C-alpha cells in the first residue's frame, strides 16, 4: 500500500515508542489495540528496525495488519489496523468523581455512577468476580452462581442498610459493661443462662444461613453481598456475646431442646433464597425482635439489658432487609405468595413431629418475666409470657402486611410459625 492510499486515515490511538525497549512497547500496543474498534488504526511512533520486525510478528499472531510503515527521518511510524480477531475490550469509565456527604463522606448510596452504577436485572455468570463496572476480557469462565437476577436478592434500602450496619458495629469484648455484672439470685441467673444458651443456639442458624447463600449470589449484585457479610459478622458477635453472658456470672451454658434443633435444621435446609429470606429475616428474626425487647424489659441486670438492646438493633437491620427484599420479589411476581404459604406449611409439618415445646426456655422466660421464682413471681411471669406470645403474633402479622400479604394469609402463616420463635 502506497502513501497515497493513506490519506484520510486518522489513528484512533497512538503509542509513543521512542527510546523504549521492545517488550514494553508490545505490551502498550496490546493494551492500545484492545481499546480501539475493529478496523480502527493504531499509530506507533519511534523505535528502530528491530521493532519493525517485532511489530510485524505481533500483528501476525494477534489478528492485526501493518498497513503502513513510514520513515520520518529519526523516527519511524507504523500504522496498524485492528482485525476482527484482535484483542477486543469495551471502554472502561474515566472521569468519575463520587459526591461527598457533609463535604467528606463517600456513602454507598452515592456510588451508583457510570458503569459501576449499572445494576443489571439479569447477570451472566461469566463475569465472576470482575468488579461491576470494570471491563472484562472476553472468554472468562462461568461461576457457579445461582442467584443471578436482581429480583432474587435486591432490596431498595440495601445501600442505606449497609451504611447503618457499619456505623452500628460494636465489640462484645469492649462495649458491654461487664464490670457492672453483680451476683444474682440463683434461679434468676439460671434463667438468664438458659435464655442466653437458647439465643446463642439460634444465632448459629442466623449466621450459617446467609453464609450458605452468599457465595450463590452473582457478584454483579455486590450490595446484597456486602450487606450479608455484615449480617454474618453481626451474628458472629451475637453468638460471642450471648455465650459470654452465660459464662460470665457464676452460671454456665444450659439446656438445648431437640425442638429447637429440628426447627433450626428445617430453616438451614431451605435451599430457596426467597423462602429462606422470608422464614429467617421476616418471621424468625422478626419474632426475635419481640423476644429481645421482652428480655431487655425484664433484664435483672444492666449487662444483660445492654447485650439484648444492642443485638436487637442489629436484628432490626436484618428484618428491614428481609421485608424490603420479599416485598420487592412479590411485586415482581405476586404469584410467589403461594410459595411463602407452602414453605411455612412444610416447616410446620416437620415440627409437628416434635414436642413443640421448649420447657427450659419457657420456665426461664417465666422467671425472668416475673422477676423471680416464687409462686407469685411465676404467676406474674406467666402472664408476661402470654403477652409476649400475643405481641409476637401481632407484630408478625404486621410485618407480613408490610411485605404485601393480605390479612388472612398473614394470620394463617403466623399461626403456622415455629414455637421455637426462629
Amino acid at each position: 500500500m502506497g502513501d497515497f492510499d493513506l490519506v484520510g486515515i486518522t489513528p484512533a490511538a497512538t503509542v509513543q515508542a521512542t527510546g523504549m525497549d521492545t517488550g514494553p512497547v508490545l505490551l502498550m500496543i496490546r493494551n492500545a489495540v484492545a481499546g480501539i474498534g475493529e478496523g480502527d488504526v493504531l499509530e506507533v511512533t519511534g523505535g528502530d528496525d528491530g521493532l519493525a520486525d517485532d511489530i510485524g510478528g505481533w500483528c501476525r499472531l494477534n489478528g492485526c495488519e501493518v498497513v503502513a510503515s513510514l520513515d520520518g527521518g529519526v523516527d519511524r511510524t507504523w500504522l496498524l489496523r485492528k482485525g476482527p480477531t484482535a484483542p477486543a475490550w469495551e471502554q472502561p469509565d474515566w472521569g468519575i468523581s463520587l459526591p461527598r456527604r457533609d463535604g467528606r463522606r463517600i456513602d454507598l448510596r452515592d456510588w451508583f455512577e457510570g458503569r459501576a452504577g449499572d445494576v443489571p436485572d439479569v447477570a451472566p455468570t461469566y463475569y465472576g468476580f470482575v468488579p461491576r463496572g470494570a471491563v472484562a476480557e472476553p472468554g472468562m469462565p462461568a461461576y457457579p452462581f445461582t442467584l443471578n437476577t436482581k429480583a432474587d436478592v435486591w432490596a431498595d434500602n440495601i445501600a442505606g442498610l449497609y451504611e447503618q450496619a457499619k456505623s452500628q458495629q460494636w465489640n462484645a469484648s469492649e462495649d458491654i459493661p461487664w464490670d457492672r455484672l453483680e451476683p444474682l439470685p440463683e434461679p434468676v441467673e439460671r434463667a438468664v443462662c438458659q435464655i442466653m444458651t437458647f439465643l446463642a443456639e439460634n444465632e448459629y442458624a442466623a449466621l450459617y444461613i446467609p453464609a450458605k447463600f452468599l457465595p450463590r449470589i452473582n457478584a454483579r449484585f455486590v450490595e446484597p453481598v456486602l450487606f450479608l457479610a455484615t449480617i454474618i459478622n453481626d451474628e458472629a458477635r451475637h453468638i460471642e456475646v450471648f455465650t459470654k453472658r452465660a459464662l460470665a456470672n457464676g452460671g454456665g451454658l444450659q439446656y438445648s431442646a431437640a425442638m429447637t434443633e429440628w426447627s433450626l435444621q428445617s430453616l438451614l435446609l431451605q435451599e430457596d433464597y426467597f423462602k429462606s429470606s422470608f422464614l429467617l429475616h421476616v418471621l424468625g428474626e422478626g419474632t426475635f425482635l419481640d423476644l429481645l425487647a421482652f428480655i431487655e424489659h425484664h433484664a435483672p441486670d444492666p449487662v444483660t439489658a445492654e447485650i439484648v438492646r444492642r443485638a436487637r438493633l442489629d436484628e432490626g437491620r436484618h428484618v428491614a432487609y428481609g421485608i424490603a427484599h420479599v416485598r420487592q420479589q412479590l411485586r415482581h411476581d405476586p404469584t410467589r405468595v403461594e410459595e411463602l404459604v407452602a414453605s411455612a406449611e412444610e416447616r410446620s409439618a416437620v415440627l409437628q413431629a416434635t414436642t413443640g415445646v421448649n420447657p427450659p426456655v419457657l420456665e426461664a422466660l417465666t422467671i425472668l418475666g416475673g422477676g423471680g421464682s416464687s409462686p407469685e413471681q411465676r404467676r406474674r411471669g406467666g402472664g408476661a409470657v402470654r403477652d409476649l406470645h400475643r405481641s409476637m403474633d401481632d407484630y408478625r402479622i404486621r410485618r407480613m402486611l408490610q411485605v404485601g400479604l393480605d390479612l388472612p394469609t398473614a394470620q394463617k402463616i403466623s399461626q403456622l410459625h415455629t414455637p421455637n420463635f426462629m
Partner: protein
Amino acid sequence: MTTDRLLVIGAVAYDPKVVPIWESMRDYFRDAGVPIDYVLFSNYEAQVDALFARSIDLAWNTNVAYVKSEQRSGGMCQVLGMRNTDVGFTTRIVGRGERLGGLGELKGKRLALGSADSAQAAILPLQWLRQAGLEPGGDVELLRFDLDVGKHGDTGTSELEVLRALHEGYADYGAVGDPTWIRELEAGHVNSSLVKSLWTSPPYCHCNFTALPDFDPAWAARWSNALLAMSYNDPKWRRLMDLEGLTAWVPGRKAGYEELTFALSLT
C-alpha cells in the same frame, strides 16, 4: 456415506493442555455435525506411521511431520486446514549487538539452537547457514538444546533454553520461532534492551491437518468447512483457540514448505 463412523484425528501430547484442547475440539465438531474422536501420540513419527497405517484419518502435524508425510506419499497428501498463525511463521536470530545484514556474519560466533527436530529452531536455521556459505559446527560453533525430541519443538522448552543462553552470555546468537520470541518479549521475560531480534527469516508455513491422498474429498470438505467456521468471538471456543494459539482457522495450503522440504531431503 462416510458419516457412519467418527472421523479420527491424531495429535501429539506435547503438554497436558492438549487434552482440554481436543476435548473441546470434539465438542465443537459434534455441535458442527461432523463428529470426531482423537488419538494422542507421544511423538510425530508414530503419528505419521499411524496415518499411513490408516488408523487415523487426519494428523495434526508439525511442518516437519507434514513434509515427511509428503515424502512418503509422493507429494500427494491433502492439507485440510491450519491456524492463521501457521502462515507467515518466521525464525528469529536473536542476540546482543547490531542487526545482521545476513547470516554470513555469524562466522566464528556461537549459535544456540533448539531441538534437533524443530524446523524453526534447528532444521531451517542450519539450512540458512549453509545457504550463507557457512559450515555449521565448523564456521559457526553450535550450542544445541535437544530437549523433547519427537515433539518437533512443540513444547518450546528448547527455545526458552536458547533465550536463557543469550541472557547468560554463553551464546552469541540464538534461533527461535517468532511466536516464542514475541510471547516472551511481551511477557517481560526478555531483557529487550540487551537481547534483540537481529535477523528475520523469510516466512514459511508451520502446522497443518494432513490427510492421505485418497481420503474422501466430500468428507474432507465438510470437515474443513466446519473447522473454518469456528469463531474466536464465540466465548465457547475462545479458550480452545487461545490454548492452541490462533485467532482463526484458514484453508490448508501446500505452499510455504519448500525450504523445509529441501532441508529435510538432505538428511
